[in-house]
Structures are given as structure tokens and as C-alpha cells.
């Protein structure tokens, strides 16, 4: 089977960076491009981190297009407590030598998708601003996207930015509303499952047995995040974004259910809350598949194995 062609829309971000590395380490995936957005960090840092991590993975041939600098309606916010002020923890990657392409991410997404209808899947792992703008700018976009696999939402799980809301959706709930209702085949990877995919200190130590800029980067990038997670009582740090790729490389690890899903953007206490109509009380047709179960330890093991292979192939 030929590898699945994907574009990752991203706000790197520690777990975003790990997602690129996992994509590069996975023969089932052909990573076509990264499009960047504000979120975990500002757009400027997000774009720089994307370029740097691709260089680290010896993949600077992959184009990076910079996108939205602000959420649609909500004010800008970044999460430096989790990702550090640079966005990639304490990792110190060299300034990237490569540059983003001149085209805006929204136009790049539209151009790539319309040029090859039903060929390109998009994996949004940050706020959905770029996707929402592409959908509204080009009405033919939604029909031409093969599939979306979105990291976002907390369905029956606590929020990670308000008691109810998950970060990516909370940052731009209006964009999420647009994307959820665009009619694109969508799979949602919410906190309900990502919180079961926890990377632990001993697993980082195992990776460090291989001497490589890749393992060094993972250790440095993840340190703040790991401490933050242990402090909050988690048994490790959740690999939210990388889990989206399980939809391609290990779909058997995920349990999916079809639901009607929406997001609150009314500005009250539930602002940014993603909810599923589990009992069908709204009588509305399902608009996406939601991951409701995962074999988390198996996914973490797969992630580590892939990183070990990548690390062995990149030694200084």
C-alpha cells in the first residue's frame, strides 16, 4: 500500500514536534507539508520550531507555510507553562537555515487540496483557525479534503484549560465550529484518549541509550512538560498530538464511535467545550468519528520503537 499523504496543521509545541518526528519515522506516512498557526506559541515561534524540527529530522525538503497569527474572534493566548517560552521546552535547536514558503498557509492548503481532490488528509493538531479560513475562503475545499484527523476536545474527560474545555478548541472555538460543521470526513482525538497515552521518565531514559540529536531533543523538549504532568498527578506526559497518527499507523489501537459533535462558543463558562450527543437527544446526524478508547501503553511502545529507529538513522 502506498503511504498516506498528509499535511499537518500545527502550533509546535512539544507534542507537535514529536508528531513530526513520528510521521518522519513512519513508512506508512508521506508527510507533504506543515502549515503553522498560533496556539501553544506565537505564529513566529511556531514557524521557526517547525523548520528547526524538520531540519533535526533531516527533512527540510518538506515545505512549511506560515498561517494565522490570531484566532478568529477570541484574543490570542499561548501556553508557556506546558511548552516553555520557546514552545519546545528546554530544547535548544539551532536557528533554522530553511525558510517558510511565501504563500499563506490558508492558500497553500486550498491549492494543494484542490489540485488533487480526495488525495490529501489533513491532521490539525493546533487551534483550527487555518482550516476554518480555508473552508470559508474556498467553498470547494471541504469536498476535496480526503479526511481530517483532529487533536482536540474533551468529551467525557476534564478540560485542560478550563474545567470543561481542551486547549486547541478553547483557543479558537469559532474556528472549531466552522470545521466541525463543514461536512469533511473527520476523526476527533480528544483528551479522553490522549490522557491514556502517557510517556514516562523511564521511557525517556530508555530512548537516551541511543546517542542521537533526536533522543537528546526529545529529552530536552519534554522535561518541562513531564514535570508539569507529574505535578498535576499524571503518571507521565500525554502524547496528545502524536496519537492522531495512530489513525494511520495503528488504527487497531483506537476505538471509534460516530457522534454528532459541537462546540460551545457562546462566551459563558462552557466556552470552548466540545460535546458529543451520545444519547442522540438532538436527533442530529453524526458529523464525525470520535476516539473513545485507546490501548495507550501499546501506542507509547510503538512511539518509542519508531523514535529508536529514527534516532539510529540520525547520529550527528
Amino acid at each position, binding site marked *: 500500500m502506498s503511504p498516506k499523504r498528509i499535511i499537518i496543521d500545527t502550533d509546535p509545541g512539544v507534542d507537535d514536534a514529536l508528531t513530526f518526528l513520528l510521521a518522519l519515522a513512519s513508512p506508512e506516512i508521506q508527510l507533504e507539508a506543515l502549515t503553522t498557526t498560533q496556539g501553544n506559541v506565537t505564529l513566529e515561534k511556531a514557524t521557526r520550531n517547525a523548520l528547526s524540527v524538520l531540519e533535526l529530522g533531516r527533512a527540510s525538503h518538506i515545505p512549511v507555510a506560515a498561517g494565522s497569527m490570531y484566532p478568529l474572534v477570541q484574543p490570542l493566548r499561548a501556553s508557556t507553562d506546558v511548552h516553555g517560552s520557546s514552545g519546545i521546552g528546554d530544547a535548544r535547536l539551532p536557528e533554522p537555515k530553511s525558510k517558510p514558503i511565501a504563500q499563506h498557509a490558508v492558500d497553500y492548503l486550498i491549492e494543494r487540496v484542490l489540485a488533487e481532490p480526495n488525495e490529501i488528509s489533513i491532521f490539525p493538531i493546533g487551534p483550527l*483557525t487555518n482550516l476554518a479560513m480555508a473552508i*470559508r475562503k474556498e467553498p470547494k475545499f471541504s469536498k476535496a479534503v480526503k479526511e481530517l484527523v483532529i487533536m482536540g476536545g474533551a468529551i467525557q474527560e476534564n478540560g485542560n484549560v478550563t474545567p470543561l474545555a481542551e486547549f486547541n478548541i478553547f483557543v479558537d472555538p469559532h474556528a472549531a465550529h*466552522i470545521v466541525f460543521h463543514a461536512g469533511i470526513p473527520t476523526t476527533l482525538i480528544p483528551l479522553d484518549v490522549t490522557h491514556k497515552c502517557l510517556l514516562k521518565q523511564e521511557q525517556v531514559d530508555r530512548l537516551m541509550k541511543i546517542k542521537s540529536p533526536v533522543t537528546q531533543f526529545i529529552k530536552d523538549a519534554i522535561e518541562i512538560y513531564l514535570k508539569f504532568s507529574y505535578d498535576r498527578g499524571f503518571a507521565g506526559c500525554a502524547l496528545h498530538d502524536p496519537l492522531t497518527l495512530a489513525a494511520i499507523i495503528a488504527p487497531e489501537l483506537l476505538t471509534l464511535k460516530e457522534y454528532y459533535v459541537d462546540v460551545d462558543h*457562546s462566551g459563558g463558562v462552557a466556552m470552548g467545550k466540545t460535546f458529543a450527543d451520545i444519547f442522540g437527544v438532538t436527533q442530529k446526524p453524526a458529523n464525525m468519528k470520535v476516539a473513545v478508547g485507546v490501548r495507550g501503553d501499546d501506542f507509547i511502545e510503538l512511539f518509542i520503537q519508531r523514535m529508536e529507529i529514527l534516532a539510529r538513522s540520525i547520529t550527528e
Partner: protein
Amino acid sequence: MAKRILIDTDPGIDDSLAILLALASPELSLEGLSVVHGNCSLEQAVANGLSILELANASRVPLAKGCELPLVQPSLLAPETHGNSGLGYANLPKPRSRPTVQHGSDLLIEKIMSNPGEFTLVAIGPLTNVALAIRKEPRMVDALKELIIMGGAIRHEGNTTALAEFNTYVDPHAAHIVYHAGIPITLVPLDVTYQCVLMASDVERLLKIDSPISQFIRDATGFYMEYHDSYQGIKGCVINDPLALALTFASELCDYQELPVDVDISGGVSTGKTFADFYNYDKKPVNMKVALGVRPRDFIELFLERTEGLSRKIP
């Protein structure tokens, strides 16, 4: 030197009158139209825009097709106000010209960014195109000289819900983006436009000049007057958009107050309501100039003189 303007529009009867007023005014150089959903579907609005330009021998003005849906809200069109074609009883020939390949929001970005501090944008439809342009190119905010918006009902009753004016109600999220972008804005709400009523006698005066322009105005406003009569009990028709356009070169027609203005996007009964904080309860900075007083007869007279002039030029 003529003032360089762009119009973002959903033509629309009063939009068409605003476009004609721009073309009839030597003070202005109309350099582009970006078209948006609103009074009628995008497709219809584009065709209407092109037809109006052709009617006034102005097909040289580039017209770009913009957004066909509001950002977040479901689509809402206004066939009861503007007729099924968007132009009332007017039946213009199918346009021969075509829209540019560029998207409406990109036309705005390109014109404004390549001429910083030069352009006045007159936005007389829902603000979807303008909001999208601002989010795609944040530097546009500093490059735009001035933005005049027809929209909102500050103390006046709404014309779409009890509280909300049509353009703002159709895409309140876009309005929220535009209001808070930091652009120098003049808002032209229903508070002033509803004083500017074009009467049947005004149209009769215009018809003394035999021209496709005067005939178009008769056919378009005929329907519009019937709407105002049956829905709002108003004799004549309110010409909202031309007033906003006229303020580009005749700002003295209105009196203004600088105010912090916002729009409700919460989804309750006041969704789309544009409100001003007159007593500054919220301690927020002023973000626009709001037209709250108008000399309506002066404006109607200006509109008639200009359209008479254009009618004479195009027999």
C-alpha cells in the same frame, strides 16, 4: 486628487445605488469591488455588481468574488427586501464581464498593502470578506486609511431582529473581528440611515432625464418602497448604503460621536446587536466614530444631483 476607494458589497438595491453614487462623484476614484453574500446569494450579488458597472460604463473597475457564507452563523439572505434577483423590479442584461480570479479578501489585501495609507474602504454588506482579510494579513490594519461601515443600530430599533441591523446580524463574528482590529472606523448605523428616505417624488424628478440609470433607479426602488411600506409602514425607501458612501467625500452630512462600540456574539436574543458604551461603564477605549446625527434632505439632494448628472452622461 480624487480619493481612492474600495467597496465591499452585497448588491442589493441600496448597494447598487451606492456604487452608482461613487461612479457619479468626481471626488472619488473607485478602484475595486469585493462582493460578499448578504442581501442575495454570492452568485447573484456578483452578477448584479457586474451588471451595475456595465450599466454605468464602468466595467474597468475590477470586481472580485468573496465569501459565500458567514463565518460562523448559518446563511441568511433578504429576498423580501431586495427581491429574488437582489435588484427589485430591475431587469438588467446578463453581464458580459467577469469577476477577477482573485478572491475578494485578496483583492482588498493586495490593493491596500500595495498602497499603504491610500485607500478608504466602504463596507456596505456583512463584514465576512473584511474580517477574513484582516485575519489573513494582519498588517492590513495599519495600511488601510479609513473604513466606513454601513451597519448596526445603536439606539434605533433593528431591521432584522428587534435589536439587530441586517449586515451585522448576518455575520456578527466578522463584525466583532473588524470592530476590534484597530482600524480608524466610521460607523453609519440605522440611527442615521433611517432618516434618509428617498420618496416617490424624488424618483419622479430623476425620471425627467431619460436614461438607463434613472430607469434602473425607478425599477429597483419601486420594489424597495413596497417593502418599506408593507413591513415597516414607511412611505418611500431608506437608502442606507449611499449615505455611507457619501461620507467619503461629504463627511459634513453627519454629526459624529467617538465611542467604544461592540457587538453581541453570544447567541442569545441580542445576537448581532451593535451597542455603544455612551457612559463608558466598561472603561474600554474608543474604537470608532459613530454617525448619530444627519441632515437627511441635504444628503437626498446630493444623491439626486449626482445621479441626475450620471443619467445625463449615459442617455
